């Protein structure tokens, strides 16, 4: 019953100063990486409220990646240290509640690590692909009835 055309949809929060620039470097260096991430640029990994991540899971994103500056490199000096504590608690809590390990991942990618950014995205995408489409904590009422879904798909194909 699994959909062969399914591709993981991953939300990536990238900090403006390091990881976003790292993603940019990966791009200008023409490094290939999977097109499964949707990027949200944030000023700092410390800006990422754990509620953003829970909300993403609820809305049916298959994975969430949060990436920021390496410890010690934060543009705001300490933002990523606070974020690290928060993410640790979140990760452990989610796993304790039975959300699959790997749905929510974290990384430090600096502006000069274009290759690392591509590697991280590849790794995260593969892990999420292995886990399959998100089902846990996904809000069911947001799913369309199958016939409406089919109709919409038909309309999209007609275009």
């Amino acid at each position, binding site marked *: 019953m699994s959909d062969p055309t399914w591709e993981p949809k991953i939300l990536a929060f990238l900090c403006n100063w390091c990881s976003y620039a790292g993603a940019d470097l990966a791009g200008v260096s023409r490094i290939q990486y999977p097109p499964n991430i949707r990027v949200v640029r944030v000023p700092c990994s410390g800006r990422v409220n*754990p*509620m953003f991540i*829970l*909300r993403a899971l*609820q809305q049916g994103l298959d994975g969430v990646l949060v990436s920021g500056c390496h*410890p*010690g490199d934060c543009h705001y000096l*300490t933002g990523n*240290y*606070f974020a*690290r*504590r*928060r*993410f*640790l*608690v*979140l*990760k*452990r*809590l*989610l*796993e*304790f*509640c*039975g*959300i*699959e*390990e790997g749905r929510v*991942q*974290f*990384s*430090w990618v600096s502006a000069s690590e274009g290759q690392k950014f591509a590697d*991280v995205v590849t*790794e995260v995408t593969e892990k999420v692909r292995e886990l399959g489409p998100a089902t*846990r*904590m*996904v*809000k*069911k*009422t947001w799913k369309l009835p199958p016939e409406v879904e089919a109709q919409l798909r038909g309309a999209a194909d007609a275009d």
Partner: protein
Amino acid sequence: MPTEQVNLNEIARRLLADGTVDVVIGYTTGSQPLVAVPAFVRDPQDADTLVFNRFCEQNLVNYLHRFKAKRVAVVVKGCDERSVIGLIQEKQLDRQKLVLIGAPCAGIVDPRLVPEDATEEETLGDDVMYAGCAACAVRNPRFADYLIGAPVPQPEAPEFSDTTAELEDVESDERWRYFSREMRKCILCFACRNVCPACYCNVCFTESSQPKWMSKTDDESDAMFFHLTRLLHLTGRCTGCGACARACPVNVDLRTYNDRLRKDVKDVFEFEAGLDPEARAPMTCFRDNDKNEFIK
């Protein structure tokens, strides 16, 4: 210095009569047998209505938020006292304006375990105690100004819920089954938040409409969002008083999740909420060598 041991009614009368406090928050007998309800005594003549027994389950510290301008005396059990210390740490309470009347407590009766025909306290044994009370590590208040009884013995018991330990050992699928089963029960009445002394935001994320963080449908994912966020907000702040679990009308197993959170905070940040008034709350600080392995 040993804390002065006094009679509850006498000390309440004295504090009100000499003007030390404006109000004494304590417990009085409820309208049914085997029930105690919160009481707010302002007149020294009413001091005799105060009682302390095995039915005084409410955490009265939650009321202190409403009496910030007043001088208050409050009856605290060992667990409640931890909430006070937590709030002092967060600069929500002024210890100088507060008189703590400590009540050594050997455990509170869980009304759900009491046989229906029971009307006398004496007939109830230790087996009708709340599970959290049986594992209580703070039976005797340590920072109180007065004690209203002799300290009670502190039995050895596992510090955290057994279910927490059991769930840690099983597969992710099993944990998910347990979590979703509990969350399906939740009717989002927010009683757990309302009775929590640590939940005092003027606008809770559940009520915020800009941004609108969560919707309140019967979908269990909304309950999950609520409880997970509440847990995250209580990181390093939950003292494990158990008020939320007692207030829950549908018996969601909140204790297991609170205990897991407290255990995490203890293991990872070496911090326990409500024990040391001088300690720095873990989410307001960091160390260079915090755990980093989970980050790529």
